[in-house]
């Protein structure tokens, strides 16, 4: 299992990367492995306001549906449209397959660095 150093992680298994004041958000390798084959994603729309700790969308695997919780509060400025028709990218490349980009971040849930998150996953 892969835990890139440059990312921050939530206890709900999302990852977050800050790029020039923009928060890029996806789900972790641990999350995609636990979900199994991802078959569908519901994304927010550009312009939507997100609230830290609340669902930004949901991901369906063959087995079940899970909410993706937003690590930040802010405004959606981009949605990864390529994911919608190729949602298996979340399984194949979870850290390349970003879901949304958020600007104007006002609030953030508690985040872990890679080492802490790896330890957290081992306990789970």
């Amino acid at each position, binding site marked *: 299992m892969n835990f890139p150093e440059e990312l921050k992680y939530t206890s709900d298994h999302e990852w977050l990367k800050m790029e020039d004041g923009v928060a890029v958000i996806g789900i972790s390798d641990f999350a995609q492995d636990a979900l*199994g084959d991802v078959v569908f994603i519901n994304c927010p729309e550009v312009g939507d306001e997100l609230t830290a700790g609340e669902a930004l969308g949901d991901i369906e695997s*063959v087995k079940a549906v899970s909410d993706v919780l937003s690590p930040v509060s802010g405004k959606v400025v981009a949605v990864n449209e390529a994911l919608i028709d190729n949602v298996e990218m979340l399984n194949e490349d979870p850290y390349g397959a970003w879901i949304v980009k958020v600007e104007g971040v006002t609030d953030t849930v508690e985040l872990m660095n890679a080492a802490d998150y790896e330890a957290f996953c081992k306990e789970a």
Partner: protein
Amino acid sequence: MSELKRTKLYDTHVAAGATMVDFGGWDMPVQYPEGIIAEHLFTRTHCSLFDVSHMGRIIVTGPERVQYLEKVLTSDVSSLPLHKAQYCIIPAEDGSAVDDAYLYKIEEDRHMLVINAGNIDKDKAWLYPLAEEFDVTLDDQSDVFGSIAVQGPESTKMLMTLIGDETLAEMPKNGVEYYSLEGHKMLIARTGYTGEPLGYEVFPMNEDLKWLWDRLIGMGAKPAGLGARDTLRMEAGMPLYGHEMGVDEDGKNMPIFAVGLAKFAVAFTENKPQLIGREILEKQASAFKLLSKKDNSEIENLPRRIRNIQLTDRGVLRGGMAVFKGDKQVGWVTSGTMIPYYKTTGEGDDIAYTDEIGKRPIGMCYVDSDVLIGDEVEVDVRGKRLKAMITKAHLNASKAPYAFPALH
């Protein structure tokens, strides 16, 4: 919590990297590392192995076993010939299902009844007392031998290689015979729960289970877990007890004839005067017959039926979602997920698989009996009304050795 039960293949599943889950008190593989989608598609195009040793296997003997079975099972037991099997339902007094089962006439003097794993205790508590007034013996041999489902277009060839001749190719659907596989004697039945035109359930003694599993894997079969077992049966439109049978979302018992397969599984012969729930089942059957001619005059005896459903909007169906026609709720989704398929090329007899993968949101639902095939309905998918259609079938199994997706 009591400890989970394990089949004799438990260590084999763990060694293969399976994800194990609690299924009806059993620690079972839900999927192997390749995942449910790959396992589903491999079954449709090659051959998959499913450990179904967790299911209950009861041997029924004694001079009055046929009379007994005619009472406790819906099917025409007296007409079941040696070396054949039949789908049947264990009826309750109110015309609902205690369980669904498969009955195999394995020897002149004995039948084998295979029941759902999660219902073994309940079924035995129901079936054993009913046996007391008959000269019949029920012997639960689930711990003595196991079962592996060998399903898919390459299954016949693989098993014939182990048998050493080609007689298995002649076995009809629902056939069951003893075979010797490289010296290991076991029952092979041409039955299954995947919708595959070619598929077998093999019943090896405990000591032969691992041998058969490893031998078939060595020949190119792949293991598949409960996840793929569920997506395959859903695509085949086969009922699962607890979803399409038993208690509905409103807490009411579903009538047996709600499931279309009841037409083949329920008989009202003169050999079944004591059939449990017979009077109510005859009313359901009459309503079923009239409904199929679009005559709703007896609809109160069969108010809702199980149908196949496909979402036409983007989304995924799940059991428990409400189904609407206009403003009126007409029922519930009973099972649903996104199902993968290989896209096809050609029509009719020229149809063939390509290697391009598609997926479709399909499922089954329990809806008012005046909702018909082809009707447009709506489903409440997590607070949003999405469009869906009632369909005849998700799968076309008439082009052996392959089952092809029926697309709408």
